[in-house]
Every structure is written in C-alpha cells, then in structure tokens.
C-alpha cells in the first residue's frame, strides 16, 4: 500500500519533466517561424528599396534630363508621369542645381529652400546615388525618405542633383503583406514589428498607436540594438514574448546610405502560450493534486493502519513487560479493531487473574506469616521447654552422679578392709568361718558396686550423656584381651570358654564400652549355664553389607562390612514369648529366676544402649536351640 505512493509521485514528476521540455520545444518552433518570416520581410524590403534605387537611376540617367535642353515644363511633366507610372509612393521628384536651388519640383511646392546643407544633396553631389534612411518631412507634409542621385551631362560632369521623395508607406505596403501586419493582431499571434535605424531611431512600427513609446516615426526607442543580435535576443526572451532581430539583407547595393536597418520583432506569445500554459498548468495542478491526495492517503493510511498497528504493537510490548494496567483502545480498520478488542480482552483477563493471584498470594502470605508467628511462638516454647529439660537433665545427671558417689563411698573402705584381710599373709590367721564370711561379703560388695554402676550407666545412656570414645580397634586383639579378662568368671563353674574369630582387620568403636557389652553378655551366660559342663562361645563373623543398605557414611569403606559378635551358651535358653521385653530395663524373666540368677536386670538394657550408640544392632538369635545366642553388629573398618 505504502509502496504505491512513491510510484505515483515518481510518475507524476517524470510526466511533468517531459511536458515542460515540450513547452520549450513549442517556443523554439514559434521562434523559427517568426525568424523566417522576418527574414522574408527584410528581403522584400530590400527588393522594394532596390526597385526605388533602380527607378531613381533610370530617371537620373534619362537623356531628357541629362542632355537635351528640354523646356522645364516638359521636363516636369515627364517626371510626374514617370512617378505615376512607377509608384504612387513616390511623392515628388525634385532637381536641384549644384548650388542647392530647386530647378524642378513636381510637388508644386515652393522650392525656395536651399538644400545645399542637406545630407542627401551633399552625398549625391559626391557622385553616388544616396538613400537617406532616416525618415524626414517630405512633400505634402508627409514622412518619407530622400533618394538622391547626381545627374551627369554628356561630359560626365555633375550637372544637377535629383531627389526622389518616397513616402514611408512603401514600408507599410511591405509589412501589410506579412505576418506582422497590424490587422493580424486580432489573431492569437500578436507582434510589435519595428524597423530601426542603426542610430537607434525607429523608422517604422506596425502598432504605433498601441505603443506608448512611439507616437510618430521620429521617437527614439530606447532599445539598444545589439551588436550581436543572435546572442542578445535570447536573453530578452521570456515565457510569453519573443524578441527577434533581423538585419537588412546585404543585396541592397548600388547606392550609399547613412546606415542600416534592422527589423525588431517583439512578439507577445501570451495568447498563443496561454492555452498551452493552461494545459500545462492544469496538468501541473492535477499532478500536485494527485500528489497531495497521495500524501493525504498516506497520512490517512498511516493513521488508519500503521498507527493503530504501531499502537497495538506498543500495547503488546507493554503487556510483554508485565504492564497490564493500561487499557488498550485502538480505533482503526475492522481487523485492527478486532485485534485491539481481543488484546484488550486478553489484557483484562490477565490483569484480573494477576489481581486474583496477587490477592491469593497476599492471603497465603498472611496465612504463612500467621503460621510463622505461631511457629515462632511454638519454637520459643519448645526452646524454653528444651532449656528446662536440659537444665533438668543436667540436674538429674548431677543428682545421679552424686547418688552414685555417695553410695560408692561407704563401699570403698569396706572393700579395702575385706581385700586387705583376704590378702596373702593376713588371711592365714583367719579360720574357716571368717574366710567364708569375708568371701560372701566381698562378692556382695562387688555386686553392689555393679548395681550402682549399672543404674548410673543406664540413666546416663537414657540422658544421652554417656561418653563414647570411638577408636580403630583391631578385632583379633580385642577378642583376645576380652577372653583373658573374662576367663576368671569361668573359674567357679569350670565353664568351657572359647572364641572363634572369622574376621580380620579393625572396627571403629569404643573398646571399653564394647568390652562392657561382652562382659554383661558373658556374665549373663555364666549365670545361666548348668553347674557342670557349661559352655560359652564368643564368635566373630564378618558380613558383607549389601549395597542397598549402604549409608553415605560408609562410602569411604571400599568394602562396607559389618562385624557380627555372637555370645552363645548351652544354658536354659530364652522362651520366644520372653524375647520382646528382654532388653528393657529391670527386666527379668521371672522373680524366681531373679533369685536364682541374681543380676539387676539392667545389663541387657545397657548393652542395647551402647550398641545403638555405635550405630549397631543387638538381637537374640531365636533359631539357636542349644541355649541362648545373643548377637550384635558393629561396622568393620
């Protein structure tokens, strides 16, 4: 659409240029025609002048006038007849003697004037025919020219001067038959034709009455005659006028004159050109109109199509920038309007959903803040409870510690004395009863110590303040040390105590605590094996942990393995219904057993606490039928 506009403008400009070129072509044609006519006119004029010159020559050489002593009256009659025969424009013929005195005058006017000082007389007296090209007042008060020639006698001596007075009408006759005659001024061509002497005076003009500068033949026309007319007239040309100068043709010979004539054609082309100009003007006006219309259409097109689309584009851009608040209202073509309406509907939808979203987010935020506030309150409460718990835990711990210490302190001197009494040389002085009493006292003191320690340990485990100091422990060495440490327990019942170690390498544990576990398990076993033929076995096996069970912590272990400890005995075993509660505090299978086997009922709970603190597991192998089989696992290293 927009592409058409420059095309229209371009074609208009091209046609305008072409038509303007045609205008100047028309002008040139006109000029050629007028110049040709001017040249023809001047040729005619020359022919006329030549005819006059010939007439004069014929008259002046007429033997009647030259030689024969014909009476004056006869001579006048001859001359008058001659004039009438030739041309009515010949107003008069005069003959002057050498002194300038008229001898013959056909005009019958008094020839009293002496023409001795007149130019035509002087020139003719010099011996050649002369044409005075400046018009003058001649006979019958008319304007005209003097054609003069000497009249020679038979001796070729100038006898007298002949003067032929020619009315300016002869020029008029020439002009009348041409394009430039007055009567033609009604036509579309209008010319002022002037015959100008080279001294600047106007000899003849076709439209004297219309030319304010020329009221008679003598008026000076201030139009300088150009030295080089061809170059100059072009400059004078304007759109509506043509100025053509045609010099006098040079075939007018056989006489002398006081100068040359030039034809000045001043043509007014306005009437000729006006139609053409009107056409061109109309064309130009319509061109401009089309141009204006094109521009207007462009503007309208921009307003109606481009501008709404740009507006829409900007609106869409705004939308893309998340700016949904500005209403989209674009007036334009139907399609653009439809698009605008769709866009507006979309914008409203988005805006409303955005508002909804914002409202919802706000609500949620408020809810969250409320929840947060509640959480903070709860957290504060939890913290303060925690703090209280911590304080109370510490108090509990301190209390336990104090109780334990206070309970143990009285035992210390008792134990010291009993042991001192039992020792070597002093025991020799004791009788059987005393020795027995000391043994029982000592055993019970030890039990009491164990009970106190167990209670303390189990509570510490519960308070999570039981210290575990893990170290890399060689499995074989560890088992060996424990075997020798636990052997004394086997003495009383003469129990067969063996170890089977199917594992190498190390494990990461607190050896003291794990020893404690082994002690408790073995000690339990000692209590439960029969009096004769008791057997206790400590077995250590290595077990691959399947990859699915691998924890991240174990990743540094190239082959993540766990070590399984088993403590087996050939005792009475554990009934399946009793297994569940076995690791609980103060649990024993029944009161009768407790009496039989002693123990605090804390041992297994302590074991469980210690093993779980190591990340291991403790359980009873219920498939074992020969007695009891306790197992626990630890990570190998």
């Amino acid at each position, binding site marked *: 659409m927009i592409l058409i506009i420059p095309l229209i403008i371009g074609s208009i400009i091209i046609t305008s240029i072409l038509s303007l070129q045609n205008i100047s072509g028309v002008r040139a044609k006109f000029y050629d025609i007028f110049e040709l006519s001017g040249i023809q006119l001047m040729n005619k004029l020359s022919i006329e002048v030549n005819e006059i010159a010939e007439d004069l020559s014929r008259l002046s050489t007429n033997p009647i006038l030259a030689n024969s002593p014909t009476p004056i009256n006869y001579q006048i009659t001859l001359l008058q007849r001659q004039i009438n025969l030739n041309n009515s424009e010949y107003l008069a013929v005069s003959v002057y003697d050498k002194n300038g005195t008229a001898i013959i005058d056909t005009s019958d006017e008094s020839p009293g004037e002496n023409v001795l000082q007149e130019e035509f007389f002087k020139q003719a007296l010099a011996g050649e025919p002369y044409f005075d090209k400046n018009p003058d007042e001649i006979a019958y008060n008319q304007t005209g020219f003097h054609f003069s020639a000497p009249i020679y006698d038979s001796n070729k001596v100038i006898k007298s001067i002949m003067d032929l007075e020619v009315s300016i009408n002869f020029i008029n006759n020439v002009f009348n038959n041409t394009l430039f005659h007055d009567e033609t001024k009604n036509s579309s061509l209008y010319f002022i034709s002037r015959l100008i002497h080279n001294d600047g005076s106007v000899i003849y003009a076709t439209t004297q009455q219309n030319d304010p500068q020329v009221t008679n033949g003598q008026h000076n026309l201030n139009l300088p005659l150009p030295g080089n007319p061809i170059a100059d007239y072009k400059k004078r040309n304007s759109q509506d006028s043509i100025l053509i100068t045609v010099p006098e043709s040079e075939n007018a010979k056989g006489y002398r004159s006081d100068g040359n004539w030039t034809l000045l054609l001043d043509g007014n082309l306005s009437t000729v050109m006006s139609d053409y100009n009107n056409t061109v003007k109309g064309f130009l006006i319509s061109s401009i109109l089309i141009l204006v219309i094109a521009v207007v259409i462009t503007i309208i097109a921009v307003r109606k199509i481009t501008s709404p689309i740009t507006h829409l584009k900007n609106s869409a851009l705004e939308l893309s920038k998340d700016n949904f608040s500005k209403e989209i209202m674009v007036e334009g073509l139907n399609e653009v309007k439809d698009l605008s309406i769709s866009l507006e509907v979309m914008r409203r939808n988005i805006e409303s959903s955005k508002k909804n979203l914002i409202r919802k987010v706000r609500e949620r935020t408020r809810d969250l803040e409320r929840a947060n506030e509640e959480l903070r309150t709860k957290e504060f409460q939890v913290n303060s409870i925690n703090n209280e718990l911590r304080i109370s835990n510490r108090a509990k711990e301190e209390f336990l*510690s104090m109780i334990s*210490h206070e309970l*143990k*302190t*009285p*035992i*210390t*001197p008792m*134990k*010291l*004395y009993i*042991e*001192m009494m039992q*020792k070597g040389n*002093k025991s020799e002085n004791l009788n059987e009863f005393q020795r027995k009493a000391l043994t029982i006292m000592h055993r019970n003191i030890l039990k009491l110590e164990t009970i106190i320690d167990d209670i303390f340990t189990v509570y510490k485990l519960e308070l999570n303040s039981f210290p575990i100091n893990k170290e890399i422990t060689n499995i074989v060495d560890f088992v060996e040390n424990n075997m020798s440490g636990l052997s004394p327990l086997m003495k009383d019942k003469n129990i067969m105590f063996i170890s089977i170690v199917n594992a190498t390498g190390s494990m990461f544990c607190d050896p003291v605590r794990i020893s404690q576990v082994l002690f408790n398990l073995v000690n339990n076993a000692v209590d439960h094996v029969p009096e004769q033929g008791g057997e206790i076995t400590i077995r250590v096996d290595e077990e691959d942990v399947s990859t699915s069970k691998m924890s991240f912590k174990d990743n540094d272990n190239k082959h993540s393995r766990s070590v399984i400890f088993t403590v087996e005995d050939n005792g009475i075993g554990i009934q399946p219904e009793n297994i569940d509660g076995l690791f609980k505090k103060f649990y024993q299978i029944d009161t009768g057993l407790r009496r039989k086997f002693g123990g605090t009922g804390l041992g297994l709970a302590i074991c469980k606490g210690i093993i779980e603190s190591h990340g291991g597991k403790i359980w009873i192998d219920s498939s074992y039928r020969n007695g009891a089989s306790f197992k626990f696992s630890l990570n190998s290293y």
Partner: protein
Amino acid sequence: MKVLIIDDNESITEAVKDFFEFENIECKIVNEGRLGLSEIENQKFDLILLDIAIPSYTGIDILNELKRQRIEKQKIIIFTASVFKSEQIDDFLEIGVKEVLTKPISLDKLEYIKQKYLKT
C-alpha cells in the same frame, strides 16, 4: 618413708593408713583441707595422696595455694571421682602432681602406688 593422705572420709583414710602401715610405711591422716595444707607446708612427705572433693577447702585450693607459695617438687597423687582434665595437671606439674587416679580407691591402686612411688 612417710605418706600423707588428705581426704574427708575418715574410714577411707583409716583404711589407707592401715594399708601403708601393714607395709611398714608411716602414714599421716588429715581429714580437713587447711590442715592438710599446713602439713605440707611444715614437713616434707615422700608421697601425698590428695582427694579433690574435700568440703570447704578443696584439693584444688590446696594445689593453688602451694603454687602460690612456690612449694614445689612434691610427689602428689590426686584422687578424684570426676574426670580431671589433663590441662589441669599441666598447671600443677611444677608443684609435683604426678598422676591422677579415679575414685574409688582400691587395693590394686594402692599396690600400684606403693610399687611405683614408694620403692626403697
């Protein structure tokens, strides 16, 4: 050979004294902190067994006072029920703290002390 035992529990000090006397080692009992300090100030013992948890004037008070008075190069064994940090021993090395043993005092520990510090 002369041993000093400073502990507020009279039964324990008596037992310890008996232990050493059975071994023909003279043992002086002190059951109060300040008295213990003045004993150390007044005479030189071959070994001092010092309980930390003594009421009113503790074992730590005694050690600090000894340090302040620059009474050095003693042979002191500390007994404590709680964990005594190793840095704390470092503070009293100059005075002559040799070792920290955990309570309760047992016959084995006394035998160990006798073997280690009281061999003629």
